[in-house]
């Protein structure tokens, strides 16, 4: 008999989704209660997962097709917290656009469920199921503001391109299955040997599919349009949560089944990393819409995360996970600021709308200052440490080219972050924005900014937690 306790979080969240759907169908005006219940469900799931982290080192289930280990638990916790925060700060935005419906929390919960399956997968089929569950929920979320043309366009674009990448991914999976005779990661790892050249195609197809999901260059084309068109809260979700899951899967793929083939994939990852870092930095310079700019900046940040993965060392993986954790916090903070740019039920998304913000809203601008300098990687803020760990791991492997290109692209990237700061602090002021924000929005902004600002006082804690992840 399998120990079903290990997948209790997934079971609980599936049951909650069903219950919330039934509740939504049978009860009128149930959006508020669904929101609250879904928050509650996420909280309980998080508690269960945290509880699990302390008791489990590595367990497998269902013929080793699902794995529960330290990395999966940590990444699930991160996903759940991300999902929770997105839900709590969305309500005002959704109400403004009159899309405060039960589907929103249910879709978010489903995609979280998909991601949790992805994170725990140790088998090609389980992985693919999880991936599709989260993707389908995300397509709908992208079009969620259905009365707006841009939102529908974003959803359609995302759907078409994502389906294409899923196809490639599936094709790669079938090639890998054909050469190894199994869909299980551990078995594949034992069966593969690097002499099979066709196998390289399989790996490349899988990497292309995954690179699409995390929007690494050159598979990033969808990101700016989708980020810009989707409702802001959904964009926030896009930039944080699916990336955590996709990164975990990336790590799992590279370091469990394909570890022996490191010569084949290392160059690909280095290329993806360098291309993303450089392109993300250069392309963001000309942007005028903040969400589009964030899309390019997130491409750049994914480049740094991939640089950690390219090192093929435990330090590298740990530094990538630290990077993505800090990035999630910075993103949350930045979007909280963005959601505060509201005047008379209208949200502002252009960089020009920030002009002279510091005169009317000194505290908000100070938060943005901290966040933007942190995103640019200036010490002593958290963003610097994230990059510092990555480059520490990269230089341990003597990959000087990667490190120097990465650091030079931070200088280019610093330019567009500085440009926003310039607009906030040096330019003429505009009208005031509303200040009656929800308590949760203020809370998430304050807490995340303080975390970014004061991370340098206690940097050891995060490292300690992450250092328990030893894949290789």
């Amino acid at each position, binding site marked *: 008999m399998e120990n079903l306790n290990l997948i209790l979080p997934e079971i609980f969240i599936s049951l909650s989704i069903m219950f919330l759907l039934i509740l939504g169908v049978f009860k009128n005006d149930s959006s508020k209660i669904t929101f609250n219940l879904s928050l509650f469900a996420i909280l309980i799931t998080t508690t269960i997962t945290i509880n699990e982290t302390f008791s489990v080192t590595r367990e497998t289930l269902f013929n080793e097709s699902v794995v529960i280990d330290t990395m999966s638990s940590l990444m699930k916790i991160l996903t759940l917290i991300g999902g929770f925060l997105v839900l709590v700060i969305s309500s005002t935005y959704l109400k403004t656009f009159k899309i405060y419906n039960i589907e929103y929390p249910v879709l978010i919960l489903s995609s979280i469920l998909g991601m949790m399956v992805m994170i725990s997968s140790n088998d090609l089929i389980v992985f693919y199921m999880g991936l599709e569950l989260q993707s389908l929920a995300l397509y709908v979320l992208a079009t969620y503001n259905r009365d707006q043309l841009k939102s529908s366009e974003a959803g359609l674009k995302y759907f078409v391109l994502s389906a294409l990448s899923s196809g490639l991914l599936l094709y790669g999976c079938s090639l890998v299955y054909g050469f190894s005779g199994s869909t299980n990661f551990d078995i594949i790892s034992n069966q593969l040997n690097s002499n099979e050249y066709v196998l390289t195609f399989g790996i490349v197809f899988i990497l292309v599919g995954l690179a699409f999901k995390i929007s690494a260059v050159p598979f990033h084309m969808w990101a700016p349009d989708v980020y810009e068109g989707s409702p802001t809260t959904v964009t926030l979700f896009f930039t944080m949560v699916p990336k955590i899951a996709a990164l975990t899967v990336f790590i799992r793929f590279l370091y469990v089944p394909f570890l022996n083939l490191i010569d084949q994939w290392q160059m690909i990852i280095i290329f993806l990393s360098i291309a993303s870092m450089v392109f993300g930095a250069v392309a963001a310079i000309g942007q005028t819409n903040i969400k589009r700019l964030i899309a390019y900046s997130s491409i750049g940040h994914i480049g740094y995360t991939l640089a950690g993965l390219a090192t093929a060392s435990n330090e590298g993986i740990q530094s990538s996970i630290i990077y993505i954790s800090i990035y999630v916090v910075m993103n949350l903070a930045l979007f909280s600021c963005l959601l505060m740019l509201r005047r008379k039920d209208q949200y502002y998304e252009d960089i020009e709308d920030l002009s002279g913000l510091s005169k009317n809203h000194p505290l908000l601008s100070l938060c943005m200052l901290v966040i933007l*300098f942190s995103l640019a990687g*200036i010490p002593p803020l958290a963003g610097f440490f994230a990059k*510092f760990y990555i480059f520490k791991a990269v230089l341990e492997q003597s990959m000087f080219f990667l490190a120097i290109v990465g*650091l*030079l692209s931070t200088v280019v990237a610093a330019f567009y972050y*500085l440009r926003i*700061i*310039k607009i906030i602090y040096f330019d003429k002021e505009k009208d005031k924005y509303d200040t009656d924000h929800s308590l949760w929005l203020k809370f998430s902004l304050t807490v995340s900014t303080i975390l970014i600002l004061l991370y340098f006082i206690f940097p050891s804690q995060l*490292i*300690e937690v992450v250092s328990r992840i030893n894949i290789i």
Partner: protein
Amino acid sequence: MNFPILSSLILLPIIGALFLFFTKDKEGNNLTAKYVALFTTVVNFLISIYLWISFDQSTSSFQFVEDRTWIEGFINYKVGVDGISILFIILTTFITPLCIISVNNSVKNRLRDFLIAILIMESFMIGVFCALDLVVFYLFFEAGLIPMFLIIGIWGGARRVYSAFKFFLYTLLGSVLMLVAIISIYWITGTTDVVQLYEIGIDVKYQNLLWLAFFSSFAVKTPMWPVHTWLPDAHVEAPTAGSVLLAAILLKMAGYGFIRFSLGLFPVASEVFTPLIYTLSVIAIIFTSLIALMQEDMKKLIAYSSVAHMGFVTLGIFTLQQQGIEGSIIQMISHGLVSAALFLTVGVVYDRMHSRLISTYGGLVSVIPKYSILFMLFALASLGLPGTSGFIGEFLILMGAFKDNFLVAVIASIGVILGAAYMLWLYKRVVFGKLINEDLKKMLDLNRSEYFILSCLAVPILFFGFYPDPLINTIEVSVTDLINTHNTNIASK
């Protein structure tokens, strides 16, 4: 455990800034905020004086060392001072209160935020000079960019945005290579602790590349020719207090870095690259002096003169002679005082006439005599007249240079003459001559606070000019030890 005096020097301005942050911002002349900032910095100055008094001059080892685990098994928060760094700390704590007194007229809006930026800047600058761990040093070195960017960008002149960006990106570009070098040092030797690194030494085969990486950062910050172009822009656009901090202290971070890290950690590479430094320094001295001669804008002229003076400093450091290095340190201290004073004197007339162009002025001596006397003192100190601190520095540097390389020393001496030429010509055009511009007649002489600031700067300039012993005694043992270690390192490799 002794009282953590260096950490309190670093933390005190931050606490002051926090306090200001929670006070209410008033429009106009916010006296409360100013007094709070002034009080904090004066207390900091007194602490640093106490530091100097209790400093043991007979040893070259680091004193007041604090060593705390920061990132487990990787970085320690380690600070300490020796004869080389202590003077820079005192310079920082001395200049900052003067900056704060001087903001009377130059900063019109958001005075509280300006003071917060200055206080945070002070804390980072002190951190740079007492960090004994490469990562901690880098952290402070880079963090200083944030407040300075805001000081130039928010309170600067017409082209402030361009200058702030140029300043930030130039410095950042130089520094990222240093970060690569620091992490590489960690992987080569297993530590980033400077004291341990002095003992272990770094393998000769890595030294050249690492030296170049550090050089890229320090050369931009110094600034050395040809990467000096950010400095005139930043100086001209920054408000007076910002220019003062920039010239008096920020530039010294690089000179200090050259002595502490380039010489200390990479002795062999320093020897190898001495010709490069000589060439760049000599070009800086001659070329920027000539540029300074042609300037129409007073602040720009002083900015170029800073580049030339820093050229002397780098020249002196890499003579690798006792006199040369001591001269460089004294020159840095002296330049810190003199350039601060010169920027403040320009600030004084700028506040009254709102013009920095030399052609606006002329014949000031008959209108504002007190000002003219002090201006003369600072101009003479800048060109290195005997009896001012500028002389001691330049003289020692040239003495070291003559020992090491005759040709370089001769060319550098020509730079001294050019320095006299542009400073005296500037003084002549501004202060002497006919009073043509009618508006100048209404100018008021120095008010009390300006008089106070400028006298505060004039006293040490004259005092150390006649009696440099306190400075030399403080640095002597450390420099001797540095040279000895350097020579044994070279001999053994």
